[in-house]
């Protein structure tokens, strides 16, 4: 394990930023969000960012292809460029796991080249949590907040940043900053891990009932009589899907610039009535159906197709952002037989 004194943190960031773009959580007027690092920008140790880190690989809007139309002819213009190398620092364990979930969608055959390019060029440096919140429930999905995944895992303990590379990409980044680091033993990190695990045990949501969603439960859960009550207050605003690190549904739309047509994709939400609307009708006409779709996908459909892995990482964003205070925790408790 490598270590860098916290007093040299700025040098560490500067060394990385000298070679590639570096993004990290920064406090702002509206809370903490990822920002591009430059001299003078301070890394925030806040528990998590407002928006998830999925933007780095699956941005909210991106150009797919351009067209030119003239008379009866059409020209297809492939505007793709290879992504630049970049580093995301300070990703929490929950968000780090979300990349693996997004990979199962975007890197499945046929590979999404836009996502794949960013994944190939992005290096993820994660940060272990020390002060989890009551809204955290990553443990319910088998995520260890004290040992986050990523290309490099980091811990801040005893006035030092401790780093451990997990991949070749991570090794390469550590080599670039080798002059700033020194070897350290794992004692400080081990002590922190043990202490945080004790805190985690006491969190109210770490033991959510997930077993109830395993096995052949699709129709049982889908047909549950609880959906109308659970979804009654849902405004269909889609906030939960936008802040969610694993929501990956998208829309494709064309924009006529006057000089040509730009085809782009942008995040979409199964919570919206237009999502499934066709010329001849809508397969999910009510908010009950749309609400059910979102949670069934995360808790039953996605696991069915991915070896039991849930489509939720317990980051808790939907708990804190939902305007009517409805969320996946309430759905899991209600459908999992532990209604409060």
């Amino acid at each position, binding site marked *: 394990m490598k270590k860098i004194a916290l007093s040299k943190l700025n040098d560490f960031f500067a060394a990385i930023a000298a070679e590639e773009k570096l993004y990290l959580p920064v406090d702002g007027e509206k809370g903490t969000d990822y920002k591009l690092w430059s001299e003078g920008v301070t890394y925030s140790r806040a528990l998590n960012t407002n928006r998830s880190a999925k933007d780095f690989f699956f941005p909210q809007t991106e150009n797919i292809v351009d067209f030119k*139309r003239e008379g009866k002819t059409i020209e297809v213009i492939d505007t793709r460029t290879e992504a630049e190398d970049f580093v995301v620092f300070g990703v929490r364990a929950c968000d780090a796991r979300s990349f693996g979930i997004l990979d199962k969608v975007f890197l499945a055959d*046929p590979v999404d080249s836009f996502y794949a390019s960013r994944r190939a060029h992005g290096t993820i440096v994660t940060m272990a949590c020390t002060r989890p919140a009551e809204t955290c429930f990553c443990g319910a999905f088998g995520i260890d907040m004290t040992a986050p995944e990523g290309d490099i895992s980091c811990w801040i303990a005893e006035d030092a940043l401790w780093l451990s590379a997990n991949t070749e990409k991570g090794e390469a980044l550590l080599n670039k900053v080798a002059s700033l680091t020194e070897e350290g033993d794992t004692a400080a990190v081990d002590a922190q891990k043990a202490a945080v695990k004790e805190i985690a045990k006491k969190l109210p949501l770490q033991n959510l009932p997930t077993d109830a969603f395993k096995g052949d439960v699709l129709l049982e859960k889908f047909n549950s009589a609880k959906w109308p009550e659970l979804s009654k207050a849902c405004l269909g605003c889609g906030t939960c899907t936008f802040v969610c690190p694993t929501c990956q549904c998208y829309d494709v739309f064309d924009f006529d610039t006057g000089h040509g*047509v730009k085809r782009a*994709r942008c995040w979409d939400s199964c919570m919206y009535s237009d999502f*499934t609307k066709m010329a001849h009708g809508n397969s999910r006409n009510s908010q009950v159906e749309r609400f059910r779709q979102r949670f069934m996908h995360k808790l039953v459909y996605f696991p069915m*197709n991915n070896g039991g892995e849930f489509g939720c990482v317990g980051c808790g964003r939907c708990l804190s952002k939902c305007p009517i205070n409805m969320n996946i925790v309430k759905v899991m408790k209600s459908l999992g037989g532990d209604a409060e």
Partner: protein
Amino acid sequence: MTESLIPVIGVVTDIRIDTPDVKTFRVVTPDGKKAFEHKPGQCAMLSIPGVGEAMFSITSSPTNTEFMEFSIKKCGCLTTWLHAMEVGQQVTIRGPYGNPFPVDTTFKGKDLLFIAGGIGLAPLRSVINYVRHYRDQYGKVDIVYGSRSKDDLVDYKEIIDEWMTTEGINVHLTIDREQEGWDGHVGFVPNYVKELGFDVNKTAIICGPPIMIKFTLAGLQELGFNKTQVFTTMELRMKCGVGKCGRCNIGNKYVCKDGPVFRCDQLDELPNEY
């Protein structure tokens, strides 16, 4: 790296008016070839940049080596634009998408019963002409096809001139209401299927409006058919065609990649959201 979301150019070389609201478009690449090979029941994304992109079933048979055809009903923004096209217009095309009908496995050697309503004939035409091409590899073929009126029957000339004249193929046409100049059967497809009373050893393939599929399936079950003998093809809103955009998700399936062809007993395992 190739990207499935980036289409290629297609040229419309022929437009046939089938009904007041259905046209069949012939599409080739600018150098006069098929854009790609497909199997019966598969679909393609057609688009006019700036107007929209949507999924359509490929109605021509893969045995047609020269071009692909799409029978399209005018019902929305993009289809209205497509209906206003003239020959020579370029479109964009990408595909093929989805699972085909099991023409080379389950259907081989079987007596086949095709049941279609209205524009629902479009995806089945590909299968029917494939079976006609490899006629000796399949048993008897029955086709029950109905529409609102005689004028709403898609592929009418081809049905009369080619399908009805093929050895071993029986075509049973019906229209919803009496019409001058029509001396054929009058009545809804599900009822007509029951009246015709087919042998239960057949494999049935249904496509049409959801309500027609529902009642026809019930009718077939009354006749003694098992759902495992009945295939259908579905349609839901799609954007990507490759199981990523999430729109056509029903249960753990994506209609664009796990469908659009399903065996009816498989649908019982899915939520009823189609």
